[in-house]
């Protein structure tokens, strides 16, 4: 019986472990009630009868038990031989055989069995929400949805997105966050990708438009400042400049509503009529600057939210800086009479900073003190002979049995950088620069400077001092 209990303890522990695990899964996945799961206890009865049957089949026969009794009592085979021989006379001399006791050290297996029983019981009475949390299939996309929400809010606050479109996007984001399931993550991620493209596409379009208008405001601000700070412009040039300013202001008229509000109506009327008063002209640069700063701040916010590229962000930040009036005044005072409309346009387009249309080649060069060659020395380097150096680039044509005869046809080394270069197929790789060109190089650097028209040194210094 102890053998039955021992084996039942082992098998039962295994069964309880499996049953407990199954309880957890079934409750979480199918929400089966504990009462129904209790039917699994019937498996223990099945196991008990299986163990009983197994042990019954493996029960030792009478011979084995006799041998056990004989060995236990040290009877020297008398009990085992009793079938074939009358051993009673010998056995009578011995003490009565004792029945051996079967001992089972059940501490470890009993502890495991108890542990498994507790485990399976706990699995039956674990609160449902713990199971459901453990087996929840919800897809975690909260961070992505939150980011997109923030972007939509920014676009809405900056009036870069229509309220209806913003509402529609927010509804879609809410729907995705609620319906996203781990069973089909591709669907949720595809929807998020689509919304991301839609939001960023809208933002990009607005950013490009804003950047273009900001450049125009930039130009207009510079031109307004130029016109406000000089009285010495030729009338014809001033008229052309005013016309250009008017065109620029009309281009940004939609955003010009953001100019100082009290003067909006009068200012816009004056702009449209091309008849701005001196007071309006005087206030215009600061108004345009304020507009430009607002646009730059808007671009910075879009950049911070990840909706603009870094290049646009750089443009917006660098555009915030403009030359000071003092520098411009000094420049205009000195050059107002000579300025043409082209110069004015160049100034307005931030000369020296490159442009989208004309590029850096249009920038005015700044000449400072030339690099001195005083103290410079050439280091003498012995270049390898052309024939030796050519070995590295040569290709084998064949193998001779004996040492090849010296090629008499090869000319001796002569002067010239392209000496021994193949005619027509010569490559720069095999050109040899010879030391005798050292003199030519030295003469080039020692040549007398050409006569050039003197440039007033402080011309551009004034300009750059205003930009810095």
């Amino acid at each position: 019986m102890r053998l039955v209990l021992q084996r039942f303890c082992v098998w039962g522990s295994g069964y309880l472990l499996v049953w407990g695990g199954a309880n957890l899964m079934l409750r979480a996945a199918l929400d089966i009630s504990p009462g129904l799961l209790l039917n699994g206890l019937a498996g223990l009865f099945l196991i008990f009868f299986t163990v009983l049957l197994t042990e019954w089949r493996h029960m030792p026969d009478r011979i084995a038990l006799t041998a056990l009794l004989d060995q236990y009592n040290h009877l020297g085979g008398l009990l085992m031989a009793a079938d074939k021989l009358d051993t009673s006379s010998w056995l009578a001399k011995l003490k009565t055989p004792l029945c051996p006791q079967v001992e089972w050290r059940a501490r470890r297996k009993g502890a495991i069995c108890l542990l498994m029983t507790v485990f399976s019981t706990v699995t039956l009475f674990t609160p449902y929400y713990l199971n459901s949390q453990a087996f929840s299939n919800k897809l975690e996309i909260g961070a992505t949805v939150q980011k997109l929400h923030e972007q939509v809010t920014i676009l809405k606050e900056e009036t870069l997105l229509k309220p209806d479109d913003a509402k529609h996007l927010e509804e879609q984001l809410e729907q995705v966050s609620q319906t996203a399931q781990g069973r089909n993550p591709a669907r949720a991620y595809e929807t998020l990708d689509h919304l991301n493209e839609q939001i960023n596409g809208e933002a990009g379009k607005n950013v490009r438009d804003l950047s273009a208008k900001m450049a125009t405001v930039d130009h207009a601000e510079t031109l307004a400042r130029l016109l406000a700070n000089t009285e010495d412009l030729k009338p014809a040039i001033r008229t052309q400049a005013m016309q250009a300013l008017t065109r620029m202001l009309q281009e940004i008229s939609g955003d010009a509503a953001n100019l100082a509000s009290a003067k909006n109506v009068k200012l816009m009327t004056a702009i449209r009529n091309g008849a701005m008063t001196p007071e309006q002209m005087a206030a215009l640069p600061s108004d345009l600057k304020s507009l430009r700063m607002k646009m730059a701040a808007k671009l910075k916010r879009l950049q911070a939210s990840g909706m603009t590229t870094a290049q646009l962000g750089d443009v917006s930040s660098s555009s915030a800086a403009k030359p000071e009036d003092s520098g411009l005044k000094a420049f205009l005072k000195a050059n107002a009479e000579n300025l043409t409309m082209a110069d004015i346009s160049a100034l307005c387009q931030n000369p020296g900073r490159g442009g989208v249309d004309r590029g850096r080649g249009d920038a005015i060069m700044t000449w400072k003190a030339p690099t001195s060659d005083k103290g410079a020395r050439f280091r003498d380097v012995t270049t390898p002979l052309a024939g030796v150096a050519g070995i590295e680039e040569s290709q084998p044509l064949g193998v001779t049995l004996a040492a090849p005869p010296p090629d008499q046809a090869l000319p001796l080394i002569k002067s010239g950088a392209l000496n021994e270069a193949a005619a027509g197929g010569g490559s720069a790789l095999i050109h040899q620069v010879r030391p005798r060109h050292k003199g030519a190089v030295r003469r080039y650097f020692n040549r007398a400077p050409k006569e050039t028209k003197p440039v007033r040194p402080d011309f551009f210094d004034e300009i750059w001092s205003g930009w810095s």
Partner: protein
Amino acid sequence: MTAINDTPLTSAEIESANRQTVKLLAELDRIVLGQKELHRMVLVTLLSRGHLLLEGLPGVGKTLLVKTLSELLELTWQRVQFTPDLMPGDILGYHILQETEQGQRKMVFQKGPVFTNLLLADEINRATPKTQSALLEAMQEQTVSLLGQTRKLPFPFFVLATQNPIELEGTYPLPEAQIDRFLCKLNVVSQDPDILTQIIATRRRGEPPAPEQRLPANALNTLFDLMNRIILPTPVAYYTARMVSATHPDADEATRMVRDYVTFGASPRAAIGMAETSRAYALLDSRPSVGFEDIKAVARHVLNHRLILNHKARIDQINADIIVADLLNTLDETGLKLPDDITIR
């Protein structure tokens, strides 16, 4: 050879046999002092009709023991001192040309010393393998075949060989086939000081006293007959078979020590030998049946020279006795295969 008698043993027969063996052992113990357990195993080997190999240092009484035994049993005995130049003919015998009274000449077989009941092969490992092998047939079949003629040896025939575990230069270790023919190998150890004191105090020049009682030749035959009727129960036979099987490293019940140190295990002849010696052991204990204890008592002596150990055993200084002792401790007698946490008390 005696015919097998199936008549059940009686208590009186066993008592009678026990009286004779006790007397014999007492006489042996009186003449050769201080080797009681050895004497018991020697007698067990003789009752099992097996050959005995005695191993021990010079001067411990190996030859004296064999000589005394032959005198006590009233058996003919011959002693052969094995030397490297000993030839097979010196043991088995040879044909010599003799002239008859009629003046004819014919080959006459001159029996060798092997034609005796008790052959003392002293220092058997000093003879060449050729000479050692001359004993193979005699030991197994109790016959000698020469020039196509087979001659039976007298019954009973025992070979009691001695060998010296030291001075191995110029010796020829016994081949496995021959060593397997020895039923038991017994180690003869030195005496303790008390016994030595007794020897030198009571015996001039170490000469043993003359035997006072001898076992008649027909008494030995009776003992052989009783031996045949000792019952070997099936569980004990199964235990013996499992034990011999477990000496093989690839056996299911082989112990870790067997797997580590044994190259070849014991042969079926060992199982037969264990069964026979355990019968004799039971007879000396006045029992008509063999128990597990008898198997345990004789296992070491029957198995120790039959296990071929590997070099690792030599390095770890493990000998066959240790391995057999481990086997006896590990192997469950009844073979019930109980789980580890189930014990019988």
